[in-house]
C-alpha cells in the first residue's frame, strides 16, 4: 500500500517540531522553577532581619532553640506536604498527634506494661487513623476537607472522653517512673551536644524525615505516583497508577509523622493534656503552603515544607528574642502566608512561561 503513503504528502515532511517559543532555560531559571524558592527567599530575609535586630538570635544556643521550635512543626509538615502534593489535606493531624501520645501513655499506664508496648500500639493506632481517613475518602469520594474535619472532631472527642474514662482526669497520668521510659525518652526526646550546644533529637529526626521524603518523592516510583495522583488522579488511574493505595499510603505517612511527634510530646513532658493539639493542624498546612506546596495538589516539595516550618520557628522565636509585643504574631504569620503564596505563584508562572 505504498500508494497510500505517497498520496498523503503533508505527512511525510520530516520537519522536527521545535517550537521557537520553548527557549532553553538557564540554570537560574531552573532554580526559580523549584517549588520551595519563594519560601527560601522568605527564610533568608527573615533570618537576616532577626539577626540584625537581636544579638541573641544568631548565638548557637538560640539557633538550636529555633530549630527545635521548627522541628516540632516540621516533622508533621513533612507528612502534610507529601499529602498535599498528593492532592489531599488532613485537618485531623493536630489532635491525631495527641491521640497517639495518649494511646501510648494510657495503655501502658492502665495495664502497667513496659512503655514500649504502648509506643508500638500508638504507632499502630496512628497508622490506623491514617488508613481509615484515606479509606473513607477513597470509598465515599467526599472531599478530604469533610472527611478529615469529621475525624478531627471525633478524635478530639475520643481524646477527652477516653482519657477521663480510663484515667479519671483530663490529662494522662505521669508515666515517668515506668519501665522503658528512659530508653523511649532517649529515642524520642533526648538532646545531642554538638560543640557545646544542646540540640534536641527532634531536629535530627526532622532532617532525616525530610531527606527520606525528598528521596521518595523525587527518586522512587511512589514519588512519581504521589505527584501524579495529586496532579490528575484520573490520568494517573488510566496509566495504571494505584491511586487508592497511594492516597491511603499518604494518609498513613501523615499518621507516622504524627506518631513521632506524639511520642516526643509524651516523653518530653511525661504527661499529655487531652485537650491539646487543636489548631496545630493549620500550622502544618501553613508550613506546607509557605513551602510552595500547591493546595490543589501535584506540585511541591518536602524541603519546601521544612523551610515553611523553619520560617514559622524563626518568626515565633524571633519575636521573643527581639523582645517584641507578641500581639502581632498571628497577623505577621498571616501576612507571611499570603506573601509566600503570592511569591510562589508569581515565580511559578514566570518559570513556566519562559
Amino acid at each position: 500500500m505504498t500508494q497510500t503513503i505517497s498520496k498523503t504528502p503533508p505527512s511525510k515532511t520530516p520537519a522536527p517540531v521545535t517550537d521557537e517559543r520553548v527557549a532553553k532555560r538557564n540554570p537560574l531559571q531552573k532554580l526559580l522553577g523549584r517549588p520551595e524558592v519563594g519560601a527560601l527567599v522568605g527564610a533568608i530575609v527573615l533570618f537576616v532581619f532577626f539577626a540584625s535586630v537581636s544579638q541573641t538570635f544568631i548565638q548557637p544556643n538560640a539557633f538550636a532553640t529555633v530549630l527545635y521550635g521548627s522541628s516540632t512543626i516540621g516533622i508533621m509538615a513533612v507528612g502534610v506536604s507529601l499529602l498535599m502534593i498528593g492532592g489531599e489535606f488532613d485537618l485531623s493531624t493536630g489532635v491525631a498527634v495527641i491521640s497517639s501520645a495518649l494511646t501510648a501513655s494510657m495503655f501502658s499506664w492502665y495495664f502497667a506494661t513496659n512503655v514500649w508496648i504502648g509506643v508500638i500500639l500508638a504507632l499502630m493506632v496512628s497508622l490506623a487513623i491514617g488508613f481509615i481517613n484515606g479509606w473513607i475518602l477513597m470509598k465515599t469520594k467526599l472531599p478530604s476537607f469533610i472527611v478529615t474535619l469529621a475525624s478531627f472532631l471525633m478524635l478530639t472527642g475520643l481524646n477527652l472522653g477516653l482519657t477521663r474514662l480510663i484515667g479519671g482526669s483530663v490529662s494522662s497520668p505521669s508515666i515517668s517512673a515506668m519501665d522503658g521510659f528512659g530508653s523511649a525518652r532517649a529515642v524520642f526526646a533526648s538532646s545531642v551536644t554538638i560543640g557545646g550546644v544542646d540540640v534536641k533529637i527532634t531536629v535530627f529526626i526532622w532532617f532525616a524525615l525530610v531527606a527520606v521524603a525528598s528521596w521518595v518523592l523525587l527518586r522512587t516510583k511512589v514519588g512519581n505516583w504521589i505527584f501524579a495522583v495529586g496532579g490528575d488522579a484520573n490520568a494517573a488511574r488510566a496509566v495504571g497508577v494505584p491511586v487508592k493505595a497511594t492516597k491511603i499510603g499518604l494518609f498513613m505517612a501523615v499518621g507516622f509523622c504524627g506518631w513521632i511527634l506524639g511520642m516526643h510530646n509524651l516523653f518530653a513532658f511525661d504527661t499529655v493534656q487531652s485537650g491539646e493539639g487543636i489548631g496545630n493542624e493549620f500550622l502544618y498546612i501553613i508550613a506546607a503552603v509557605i513551602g510552595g506546596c500547591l493546595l490543589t495538589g501535584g506540585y511541591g516539595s518536602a524541603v519546601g515544607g521544612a523551610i515553611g516550618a523553619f520560617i514559622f520557628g524563626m518568626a515565633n522565636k524571633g519575636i521573643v528574642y527581639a523582645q517584641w509585643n507578641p500581639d502581632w504574631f498571628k497577623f505577621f504569620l498571616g501576612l507571611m502566608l499570603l506573601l509566600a503564596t503570592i511569591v510562589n505563584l508569581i515565580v511559578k508562572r514566570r518559570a513556566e512561561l519562559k
Partner: protein
Amino acid sequence: MNAKEIDQQTLLQNEKDPLTHTPVHLLSLEGVGKHYGNIIALSDVTMAVDNGRVTCVLGDNGAGKSTLIKIIAGLHQHDAGVLNIMGEERKFTSPRDALDAGIATVYQDLAVVPLMPIWRNFFLGSELTSGFGPFKSLDVEKMKAITLKELAEMGIDLRDVEQPIGQLSGGERQCVAIARAVYFGAKVLILDEPTAALGVKQSGVVLRYILQARDRGLGVIFITHNPHHAFPVGDRFLLLKRGKSIGYYDKKDITLDELTAQMAGGAELAELAHELEQLGGHSDVVKEVQAEVAGVADVADAVQAGAPRHA
C-alpha cells in the same frame, strides 16, 4: 464515483485480509453489539485492524464511537457478536486486560499530568528502577534518555524533557501520549478524537504522528468526526450512525467527497437550510448552505445508487 464497500463475506470468511494478505487480523469485530438497559448503543458492527494500517471510525456525536472504543479498550463488554484478537476470541473485563493484550488507548484528555515533567509522564505507571528491595530508586538518566529518543523517533525534538508537559502544545502532548503507547509495546493504538480540540496546524502535526505510529507497524484505530482528518491517513473507514454501521470502505474504493456526503447525510443539511431560511437567516449564509445541500445530494445519490447502504 462509486464507492464499493468491503465485502463482508471476504472479510469474515476468508482468513486472509484483502489489504495486507496476512493470515489473520490483529483485531477484528464481527457483528458486535451493546445495549445499556433497553437502549441499544451499538449493533452489528464489523471491522478489522491490521499491522501498519489505520482504521478510521467516523460518526457524529452519539453515533456509538465511544461505545465502540470502550468495548475494545476493556471499559465495557459487548453483549453480541465476537471480538477477535489475533484470531482468538476475547472479552475484556478491565482496561488492564486490554493493555495486556497490547491495546493502548490515548483518550481525549490524554491521561497526562500537566504539572509533571515530560519524562515522568512518559514513564508514569511503568517507571524504570534500579537497586534492591526498599532502596529501589528511579533510573532517572535512563528514563530521560529513552523519552528523548522515543520522542525524536516520532519526530518531536524536545531539548528539555524536564519541562512540565502542560507547557507543550496540544499536538505535542498527543504525540507524547502516542509515543508512550508505542514504547510500551502497544500493537493496537486507539486514538479517541485526537484532533477534536486542536487548530488546523496542530491537527496536521497529530496526523503526522498517526502515520509515524502506523509506519512503526502498529494497527491504529482513529476515532474522529472529521472526514478531512480521516481521509488522508486512513486505510479503511467505518462509518457509524445511531449505533449502526452505515458503511465500511477500503480507501481505494471511496473518495473524500463521498465520505463527507455519507457522514453529513444530505437530507439533514437540506432541513437545516430550510430552518435557517424560516428564521430569516442572512441570505448569503442560506445560499451557501443551499449550495452545499445541492452538492452533497448529488454525491449522496451517486453513492446510494452504487452501493446500497449496509444496515
